[in-house]
């Protein structure tokens, strides 16, 4: 009884060892990536949700109309839209303030935006020394 069990246990241990050795000898199973050495070749899926960015076209214009839908959609109060008046006294975007320190990357502001003025960027290395270093103004100039 004991002998057969000893034999059986040894056999199953050896079978387990076989799996380990197979993993060792199968290079296709190696999935480890050398970060940060591979930073240049890192690929992100299109829908990757990183820090919110505001795309600007080649003339430096954005499409934000300061409708504040994203501000209302945000669950954390991460976005603040400060408006101003342009030369024709029309209400336009002054500053799009985005506080990354409170952002949960939930994608609700992007879904709320009717003009595709903001999107999720691919930035993820966000280390900072102070919390207010993570407050960004996303627009480069005032709206028109």
């Amino acid at each position, binding site marked *: 009884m004991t002998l057969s069990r000893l034999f059986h*246990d040894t056999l199953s241990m050896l079978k387990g060892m076989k*799996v*380990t050795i197979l*993993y060792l000898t199968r290079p296709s199973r190696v999935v480890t990536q050398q970060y940060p050495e591979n930073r240049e070749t890192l690929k992100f*899926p299109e829908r990757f949700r990183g820090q919110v960015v505001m795309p600007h076209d080649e003339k430096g214009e954005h499409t934000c109309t300061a409708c504040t839908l994203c501000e209302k*959609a945000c669950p954390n109060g991460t976005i603040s839209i400060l408006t101003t008046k342009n030369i024709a006294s029309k209400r336009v975007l002054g500053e799009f303030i985005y506080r990354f320190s409170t952002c949960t990357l939930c*994608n609700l502001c992007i879904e709320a935006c009717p003009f595709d003025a903001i999107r999720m960027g691919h930035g993820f290395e966000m280390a900072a020394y102070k919390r207010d270093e993570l407050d960004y103004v996303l627009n480069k100039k005032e709206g028109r």
Partner: protein
Amino acid sequence: MSESMPQGPIQPAPISAAPAVSRTGAPDAVKKSGSLPPGFTLRDVRPDGSHEYFLNMGPQHPSTHGVLKLVVRLDGETVLETVPHLGFIHRAIEKMGENETFIQYMHLTDRMDYLSSHINNLCVCLAIEKAMNIGVPERGEYIRVIVCELQRIQSHLLWWGAFGMDMGAVSAFLYGFIEREKITQLFEELCGARLTMNYFRPGGSNADLPEGFIGKVKTLCEEMKFSLDEFDVLVSQNPIIRERTVGVGLLSKERAISNGCTGPVARASGVNYDVRRNDGYSIYDRFQFDVPLGANGDSFDRYRVRMDEMRQSVRILEQAAAGIPEGQYRSKEKPNYKVPAGSYFAAVETARGLYGTYLVSDNSFKPYRVKSRSPGFSNLSAIDEITRGGKIADLVTVLSTLDLIIPDIDR
């Protein structure tokens, strides 16, 4: 200066004022205090000088997988009582939900059971859909089933790796993560996130499946079958693992029911209940799958039930990937979700058991009250009965087979 005068703001208490602790017995303060609950009182010293003692396991213990503190009353190595202390990661998510709209609340449920975040999102969606009579298109339902079953496999793979780690098999942890990473990458393509998904919406999901997703799921199913067989050879048939789990940590069927255990923990004890089959939601009634059951309710049964569940999930995935139709992925999106007054409940089967969402609405954009019924909390309540009389080393393995997620317990 008189003796009663305080000499400064910080004054160390004199050593003689500390409670009398002798090497041969419990602290006198503990023994004499009648106000302490039974779990905090030690029995008197035995004639041979031996005595019981307390051990604080956690909140930083690696095998609790989070900030859970277990106060264990021990006699030598034997566990006499285990008292879990909760609340280290309590974030008042349910209270926060009262100040957020229904859609905004959904992203908080990601942060409860973070390994079943898709399934938690689905539960909130189901409750809102029930309240507002929102239908889901055919393709949307298939997407839900595929994503939820992927999530279940992903969660069980992490559990399998962590289980191996608790047993001392570090290679199991790495192999589990290799397989899990494939599913995580699928999710990254699907919704852009790896852990906190926020993908489902009332009436479907917030985006269609990306290009080539179904093909990748089919490939994954084949790979998973192969890997699960390997995992069985590596861990399930390992004599050391069997020695440490078979017959250890017994939970009877009756006690599992009265503790409110659900999911694999209850099914390992022989409770034949799975929300997907018994209180079917989405389109689970269209798929062929078995609900694996255990006979003894020991640690090995809980292990085996989860391994079998992964195989069943692969089975569902294959059927769903073969039958997914073209068409809309979401019914017409509403500008805002104003839930009519009333209370609504929806339940889903997460990787850990029954997760329920109870919404009370007063006909506004924000819930009047939200309550989550999380599986981890109820499963944890059985830990005292499971570990009583066992050894301290078995407490770690039992804790691992319960598959607790601490943010799910504390919410």
